[in-house]
């Protein structure tokens, strides 16, 4: 049985604040995958995370360019591999996953073969126009511990 943690947010601001808090728990080589429909708020979540990493630049969608890099307290590699559906194309992902920074991957199911075994998958479900349910699915001991610590320290009931 896999452990998972759930939390509801009332609007995009609350989602971004949560992501910013999560950023404090991350370190180089951490990999987060984001699942969610169009408009669920995957890029919004990443913007919150970027803020938490002290990134002051505008973080906008990488859908077309596939990978965008930002420099904060740690580098952030923001990827959106939507355009790689059915491609089985390696764009040198390992250099990012095992690089100097934190990788956030949207539509990660399209590059499943290249993903590391351990990662934190976050599913964003739309409850209505503003409210979201975020489900954290840690894969591997490191991420299970990270989630446990995050949810306990931040007093998030789940």
């Amino acid at each position, binding site marked *: 049985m896999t452990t998972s943690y759930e939390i509801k947010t009332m609007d995009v601001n609350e989602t971004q604040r949560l992501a910013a808090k999560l950023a404090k728990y991350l370190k180089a080589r951490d990999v987060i995958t984001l699942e969610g429909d169009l408009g669920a708020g995957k890029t919004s979540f990443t913007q919150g995370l970027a803020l938490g990493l002290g990134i002051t630049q505008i973080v*906008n969608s990488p859908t077309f360019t596939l990978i965008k890099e930002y420099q904060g307290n740690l580098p952030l590699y923001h990827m959106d591999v939507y355009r790689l559906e059915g491609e089985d194309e390696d764009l040198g992902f390992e250099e990012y996953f095992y690089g100097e920074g934190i990788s956030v991957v949207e539509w990660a199911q399209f590059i499943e073969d290249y993903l590391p075994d351990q990662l934190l998958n976050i599913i964003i479900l739309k409850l209505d126009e503003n409210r979201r349910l975020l489900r954290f699915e840690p894969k591997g001991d490191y991420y299970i511990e990270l989630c446990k610590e995050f949810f306990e320290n931040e007093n998030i009931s789940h």
Partner: protein
Amino acid sequence: MNLDNQKKAVNILGIETSCDETSVSVVKDGSTILSNIISSQIDIHKRFGGVVPEVASRKHVEGINFILQQALEEAKLTLDDIDGVAVTYGPGLIGALLVGIAAAKAISFTKGIPLIGVHHIAGHIYANHLVKPLQFPLIALVVSGGHTELVYMEQHNHFEILGQTRDDAVGEAFDKVARALNLPYPGGPHIDRLAQQGNATIHLPRALLDQSYDFSFSGLKSAVINALHNAKQKEEEISKEDMAASFQEAVVDVLATKTMRAVKEKGVKQLIVAGGVAANKGLRNRLMQETEATSVDLTIPPLELCTDNAAMIACNGYFLHQSKQWSKLDLNGIASLSLESAYNDK
């Protein structure tokens, strides 16, 4: 200036491999395109996998030598006739960029000609110079699948970014809304076509972000998705044509409002539009209307120069070459290269 007729032509070879396209071009004197070969337009591309994104460096490697050869053949020149080699060094995918840069360095080194690093967006802006000389000061609206930028230029190779998107690029918003409407990819042209047949009757938000020149299209995208979702729940039918028209009007409204405000505030002579979304009829018509009664010269290049191509890189390369803004042989690809730092610090 009387010597113009006797002056030897300056031929710049341009190389662009920042994202989906492998492209090589030869441009004479910064204005005459002698060749402009783009991978997606030639047969070799089909052999290597059709119209899928050519994002992987492997695909650029497979194509670059062949496309270089084609570009020289079509220009009826050899590498001995080339005066400088211009190459996109950012922004883009690092693996893809490096293929073009390696090729450019090899040519620069073996032929002893200058290497000229070009910013991809500067290239898009300079694509206009291939149609009509740039007139300063100018405002450039760069709109594509990956970019939404409002840029001010006072002189050659000097750029000031007034605004950019805070979330989705314009072209991306078109593609995502098209997907929500079950239209094929890329969605821009389909929405444009349907919009001509529909009426903008559905109220959609316009993110004007106060006095900022920044853009935001994510909220508009969500509004369309929500409207479609709500209609489905109530088992109501929403006309695709009307939704396309309403969406397009909202996008064009925001783009035109901010662009024209910048045009007036900066008192520019020319307004240029660059990038693939420049093909959008709604945007073209609106900007034509808005500039008609003014002295501002509106320039929109033909589609083949709006999308990624190497002629635009060679064109900007020419102006960098003339002012001796050359790069060293240790030029590296920079995935997140900023337009301002690429030139203004040179």
